């Protein structure tokens, strides 16, 4: 098997993790097959990059970006972008992440993530709707967080993705994501049917898949029936439910050799696409390591082309004990000292893990990183005063040669939410009617 050219799609047809590890498979130089697609990876972190509310603060290669310094030639530092204050003069603070990712600041100062404007859609979802149809997962949402005690105000800051007003909860448990990525497809690959035994196996598989399809057809019909009865807010929630059922359908189609499961990219001797071993611990470094690797593999295996990872959120209040921390991240950001710099630097070291994996993966004449857009940004600029003037932003990867890296660009106080328009263009999925037209106006001039 390992010597044959096989379709990556085949990989995702329910081979268990053990099969992946026992029989690593290989990637061809993509140039031989087809141009590599551009993938979007969004990495967010809490509390910003400043202790005094001004300038680039700590977001430089000799401060908290030290772990990313080895990749500076692959990075475009986007300096001096801001989240403008709202009409009522409120600094967005924690809400900056949502404003950036959805191009819409309406409703943020008033409240909470779950009381979102109808239609609110984040950049990852807008792009996934456009380009994600042919991948097993149109998009994936990863999260690293502490479990944290419940908060009164319901601002679940762990949400960083929205589809048509419905929040999409990130997966914070590596085992759940592992199952989703590597055990989700129910069937073994269809045998070729060249022998009588194979033919019987094919018939059994087809019958089984027809049964599964009938279950999904029934469920879709039931959800659609309910949609005919309920109000618009509930209709949108049920749209998410239908999307979930369609995703299950894709795994059946791929198991049946249909068109739903993969991209048809040919892989051959080169780099492996396989399931990572999971860190057993539930502590933040172990979860972060597992999630970083799972995210990398989801891209590497072409399970998705749009992935986001929230590296803690402002409600996480993690202690960073593994680097000597003695107080919660929230307390650190309000009264920053060396421990705050250390914590932010550690978060960037996790970003570096993902970037290094991509860079170490050959693709075409370069690396997989060359064909990615990695957006790294934070909810706010300055944790002390919760101000967003400016906010830290960097882009890594060259988006298939479209983006010139190894430099910085100063945007003189422009709204960072406009960056979503750039990202849409880089992904070949130009965004129209994205966000609030008063908030998102034109792509940034990245040079």
């Amino acid at each position: 098997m390992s010597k044959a050219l096989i379709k990556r799609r085949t990989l995702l047809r329910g081979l268990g993790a053990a099969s992946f590890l026992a029989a690593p498979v290989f990637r061809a130089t993509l140039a031989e097959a087809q141009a590599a697609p551009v993938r979007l990876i969004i990495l967010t972190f809490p509390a910003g990059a400043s202790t005094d509310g001004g300038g680039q603060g700590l977001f430089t290669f000799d401060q908290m970006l030290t772990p990313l310094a080895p990749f500076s030639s692959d990075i475009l530092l986007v300096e001096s972008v801001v989240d403008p204050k709202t009409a009522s003069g409120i600094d967005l603070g924690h809400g900056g992440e949502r404003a950036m990712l959805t191009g819409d600041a309406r409703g943020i100062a008033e409240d909470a993530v779950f009381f979102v404007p109808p239609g609110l859609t984040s950049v990852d979802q807008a792009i996934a709707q456009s380009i994600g149809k042919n991948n097993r997962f149109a998009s994936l949402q990863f999260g690293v967080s502490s479990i944290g005690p419940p908060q009164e105000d319901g601002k679940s800051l762990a949400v960083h993705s929205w589809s048509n007003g419905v929040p999409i909860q990130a997966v914070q448990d590596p085992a759940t994501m592992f199952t989703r990525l590597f055990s989700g497809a129910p069937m073994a690959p269809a045998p070729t049917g060249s022998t009588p035994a194979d033919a019987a196996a094919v018939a059994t598989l087809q019958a089984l898949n027809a049964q599964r399809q009938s279950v999904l057809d029934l469920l879709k019909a039931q959800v659609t029936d309910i949609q005919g009865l309920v109000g618009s807010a509930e209709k949108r929630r049920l749209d998410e439910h239908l999307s979930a059922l369609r995703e299950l359908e894709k795994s059946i189609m791929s198991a049946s050799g249909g068109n739903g499961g993969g991209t048809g990219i040919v892989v051959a001797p080169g780099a492996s696409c396989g399931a990572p071993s999971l860190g057993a611990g539930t502590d933040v470094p172990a979860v972060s390591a597992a999630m970083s690797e799972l995210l990398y593999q989801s891209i590497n295996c072409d399970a998705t082309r749009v992935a986001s990872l929230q590296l803690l959120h402002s409600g996480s209040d993690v202690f960073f004990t593994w680097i000597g921390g003695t107080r919660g991240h929230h307390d650190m950001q309000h009264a920053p000292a060396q421990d705050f710099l250390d914590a932010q630097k550690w978060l960037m070291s996790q970003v570096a893990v993902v970037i290094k994996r991509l860079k170490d993966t050959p693709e075409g004449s370069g690396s997989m990183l060359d064909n990615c857009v990695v957006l790294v940004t934070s909810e706010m600029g300055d944790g002390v005063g919760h101000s967003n003037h400016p906010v830290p932003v960097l882009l890594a990867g060259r988006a298939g040669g479209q983006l010139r890296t190894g430099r910085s660009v100063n945007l003189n106080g422009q709204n960072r939410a406009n960056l979503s328009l750039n990202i849409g263009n880089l992904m070949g999925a130009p965004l129209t009617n994205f966000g609030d037209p008063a908030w998102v106006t034109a792509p940034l001039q990245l040079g």
Partner: protein
Amino acid sequence: MRRLTNDEYRTTVQDLLGLAAPPADPLLPDTRALGYSNFSSALTVSAVIGSQYATMATRLAGEAAISTLAPCVAPAAEADCASAFIDGFGKQVHRRPLTSAEQQAYRGVYDLTRTTDTYDAGIRRVLEAMFQSPALLYRMEYGVGTAERALSAYEVASELSYLFIGSKPDSELMQAADANALSTPAQVEAQARRLLALPRAHANVVKFLEEWFLVSDSAGLLKDVSLFPDFASTQRAAMDASATRFVDSVMWEGDGTVKTLLSSPFAFVNSSLAQVYGVPDPGMGDTLVKTDVSSMQRAGMLTMPLLLALQAKDNESAPVRRGKFVRTRMLCQELPPPPPNVKIDPPAADPNLTTRERFAAHSASPACSGCHSIIDPIGFGLEAYDAIGTYRTVENGRPVDSSGELTGTDVDGKYTGGVELATRLATSALVRQCAATQAARYTFGRDTIATDTQLAATLDTQLGASGMDVREVLVAITKSASFTTRTFVP
């Protein structure tokens, strides 16, 4: 439309299949809103949980005892057995009779499977569909009519059942729905009281109170290990269990009132909590023992170490958080957000000052004092409890000042210490009404609307004099028009 919480789903499946324990298959955690795990706005079927339901449904269907669930012995025709199973079991799953279209759809799944596979396989495939059916996952609460809709008897049955026992309606409730005998307040009340008397109602009422007081989940709570070395290893878990025992005790061995919840000078203490409570070790190791504690130091929920530890920073008390807790959770008063451009910069720990002295800046700054003058003086009254709720009279070598003041309430005035604060709140009509408001949030899984506030005032006049029995509040809500009607929002 309300998606079942993970607990509700697991318990429902357990009851449907007669399992010994709720199935433990992984499900994406419920997201909380306003402290509650059952808010409909926060519960969706995402792709992640959708595939988890599918995996779980396949496993459950694969392991189900078909000969018990859907017995079929000759000369019965298999097709008739399948239809009978779909009708009977489907009614329990959907919590209402199936429509003929639904019957046919399930039958279609069975028939397709049966063409290439066994009877058992066909039934299992139907089970796989039922365990992820939207009719199981959602409580529709859709009703009939136009703008103001009366809920169907079956919807009322589900509403009662999930409120009190956290699962699907039992057979008696389904019979009442079949007979359309859940339309009058008296009929609803009778069922509510029957359910409330069941042992399995206990944990559900306790769950409501724990979510109201934000003490339902402390698993992620961390404290500075250099100051509180035993918190993570033993004390946190003991506090968690102790809180549950206390609430359970007041609800099911006591009078169940808000007043008692806020004034009882007893606690459940084990070896690791004796020091926190300042009482002798009861000498039973990890076992929690009901213990009288100092009535000068403790008075129920508000002075409970778990609550105080949750409403604190990792290394010190947090008068602002505690004041906000009393305002929003106990008095149901909304607080405005901080003003624009505020520098949120709490004073760093100064070893020579008390927390209160450092927070004095709030009241000194005009920009801050507008709000903090209504928050901090309440929290200052709880300064005699440190970051894990241990009683103290000295902080950093200086005497603790736990004088406080309530303003903007019906129990206004200066006071000293948590016991006096709790005692005063225990007699507040605002607090009693807030209890009813919180119960409505939990019952309906949504934020407060105008009719809830009116109902809360009514319930206070009915139940307030006897201390506001939480159980009676829940029963009274089930008798209200809000419980059996819905306003349709297009």
